[in-house]
């Protein structure tokens, strides 16, 4: 057991940290207040390989192992959560499943664009009536010669407003099936953008499919394999959100520590007060526990082991912990923590999404329990 970073990993981490501190962090407040996806910044991130994190070097990508990918997301999360979630969805939920399940032809056609910043990926699973119960989705895919006709609607599609390529899940004759759908496809309309509590730089949109024609060679994987593909992608997404939560909590701690050293009450910096010390200490414990989970889960993934239960554990723990940590560290800021000019106000709102997106905490609890009971021979229902 050696938990030290390799030379490559250390180098990457330094590179990520430098770029994020210089190029992303100064824009966090503006991204939130303008509620604009940081397009320019995302373009700059292309050169850093942030769009191609998991793409093999043989395909001109960065070829990061999963652990190094989590280091990347941690650093972006420390700088700005909207940017981190945007890039995590692109890499975990679109690029990764394309690499894992795409045909040679599909990879040739789409990977370069996704890696080079021409196509941002978006994952379209949730529907108005199918959130936690994704398997009940209704969008229909009807085979019509060499293509499929898609009809239905998707909601809360992250990156929806910007994406060039959508990974869409629809019900065909053989069951739930995944499709790669390009923006501009006739019959596909990108609609309403959600106004959210936090993650205000992420574009969550409604998509409408009205008899949209998708060539059969853009079906990802076999018919009926859609949910498996979605689950595998969501495992990477959940681990990635854990890494983002880690970066967010580290940033929040940094902000609170600085504030508590600068803010004088009762003639001393409030850092001298026991209750502040307790809040700060507890936050640090949570951060280190989170790091342990993220690292362990990434190791399972990198060594080819099943990490689905650990992805859920990481996401559940990270979502809950990020809320608790940012909540207490906001409290350290007192009234200032409620003001938008302090980063903690934004991080507290941003982190609240982590108990909802990519499967609510309740769904993670179900999935974890299912692993436990399945090992004992009992199938449980949600």
């Amino acid at each position, binding site marked *: 057991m050696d938990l030290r970073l390799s030379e490559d990993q250390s180098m990457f981490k330094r590179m990520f940290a430098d770029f994020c501190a210089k190029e992303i962090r100064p824009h966090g407040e503006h991204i939130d207040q303008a509620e604009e996806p940081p397009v320019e910044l995302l373009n700059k991130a292309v050169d850093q390989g942030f769009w191609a994190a998991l793409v093999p070097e043989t395909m001109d990508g960065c070829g990061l192992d999963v652990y190094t990918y989590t280091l990347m997301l941690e650093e972006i999360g420390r700088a700005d959560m909207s940017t981190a979630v945007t890039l995590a969805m692109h890499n975990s939920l679109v690029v990764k499943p394309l690499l894992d399940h795409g045909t040679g032809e599909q990879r040739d056609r789409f990977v370069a664009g996704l890696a080079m910043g021409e196509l941002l990926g978006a994952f379209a699973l949730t529907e108005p009536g199918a959130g936690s*119960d994704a398997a009940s989705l209704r969008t229909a895919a009807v085979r019509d010669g060499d293509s499929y006709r898609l009809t239905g609607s998707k909601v809360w599609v992250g990156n929806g407003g910007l994406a060039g390529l959508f990974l869409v899940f629809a019900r065909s004759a053989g069951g739930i099936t995944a499709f790669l759908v390009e923006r501009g496809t006739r019959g596909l309309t990108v609609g309403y953008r959600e106004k959210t509590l936090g993650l205000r730089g992420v574009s969550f949109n409604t998509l409408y499919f009205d008899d949209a024609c998708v060539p059969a060679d853009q079906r990802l994987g076999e018919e009926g394999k859609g949910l498996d593909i979605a689950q595998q992608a969501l495992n990477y997404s959940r681990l990635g959100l854990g890494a983002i939560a880690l970066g967010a909590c580290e940033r929040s701690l940094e902000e609170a520590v600085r504030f508590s050293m600068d803010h004088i*009450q009762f003639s001393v910096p409030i850092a001298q007060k026991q209750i502040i010390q307790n809040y700060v200490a507890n936050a640090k414990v949570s951060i280190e526990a989170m790091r342990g989970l993220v690292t362990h889960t990434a190791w399972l993934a990198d060594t080819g082991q099943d990490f689905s239960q650990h992805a859920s554990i990481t996401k559940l723990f990270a979502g809950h912990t990020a809320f608790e940590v940012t*909540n207490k560290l906001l409290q350290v800021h007192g*009234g200032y923590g*409620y003001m938008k000019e302090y980063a903690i106000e934004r991080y507290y709102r941003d982190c609240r999404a982590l108990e909802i997106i990519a499967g609510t905490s309740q769904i993670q609890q179900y999935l974890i329990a299912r692993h436990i009971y399945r090992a004992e021979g009992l199938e449980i229902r949600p």
Partner: protein
Amino acid sequence: MDFSFPKEYQLFRRVVREICDTEIKPLAKKIDREHEVPSELVRKLASLGLMGVPFPQTYGGMGGGETGYCILAEELGRVCSSTTTVVGAHIGIAAMSIHLDGTERQKQKYLIPLAQGKHIGAFGLTEAAAGSDAAAIKTTAVRDGNEFVINGTKVFITNGDIADTIVIMAVTDSSLGAYGGITAFIVETASPGFSIGSLENKMGIRGSSTAECVLQDVRVPKENVLGRFGAGFLTFMKSLDIGRASLGAGCLGGAQAAMEASIAWSKLREQFGVPVATKQAVHFMISEMFVDIEALRSLVYRTAWLIDTHQPHIMEAAACKLFGSEVAGRCSNKALQIHGALGYSRDCEIERGWRDQRITEIYEGTNEIQRIVIAANLFRPYGVRIPT
């Protein structure tokens, strides 16, 4: 022991709820989005006597006491926390401090128009370097003949920019410290030298303004000293003590609304072929909300009774604010979770409630300060002095 409300309070609650549901609730989203509680709404509340609920009728109030005021705060808290905050700062600390410590002349001149809602009140204590440590204020008031000249800057002042009357805490003798050296003054905001600096951009209660108030050579007559000279600290402590019960009441209303909305939504929302209301995870969250809410309700109205019957209430009032804000935090957070992605959307009132409640753990004495207040009072009989 009789836990039922007297008839007149039941009637009062019915009337207030009706107004809240018809006049305020439909505006709540707009109030949040446009950062303003419309002045017509405040005038409407005033015309109904609601801007002076606790005060005696002889001073333009409704004579509802703390219990009546808590009913008002609870009902407002159900529909719009921005409005609760505007009304709370006006009644709970500004007018209340004059009611508690004002001379007959001051009450005639200032309390009556405040209680009638013809004037709006604010309370100016906090400064950039004096939040939890209120005794560290730097604003000064210097005697000059029959007047005092006040200089300083107050921050985070609720209603600062809409107030006609503001109670300002200022240092009158820096050698004497908190007890003896700080005096409360009634200041008319139309006075020359009083101006508004920046307005805060906040996470929630966005319809309630939070202003920086700048006092530059503001002259007030010596008759406007509120309470004993040098005893300003006692004036604000007394006012804040009472104010804390009604803060708990506002939280009670918010928590109750969050629970009711969660029950309604979980019945509507179907997943896995059934309403999510049939899921145990939801049952447990709702049950925990109920327990929190009922405990808070008992605490709030028992404390109101202590205040109305002139019994000691400092610890209980601090507990109302502390427990109330934490209940509101837990309930609004669970409600958001039950609503799922919808709860994270600004199209949903749950999202607003979640942002609005977070300030209740901070303002009018952070929850850390409430714990210190309670501990100090508990240890005092044992001769242990709690340092801050």
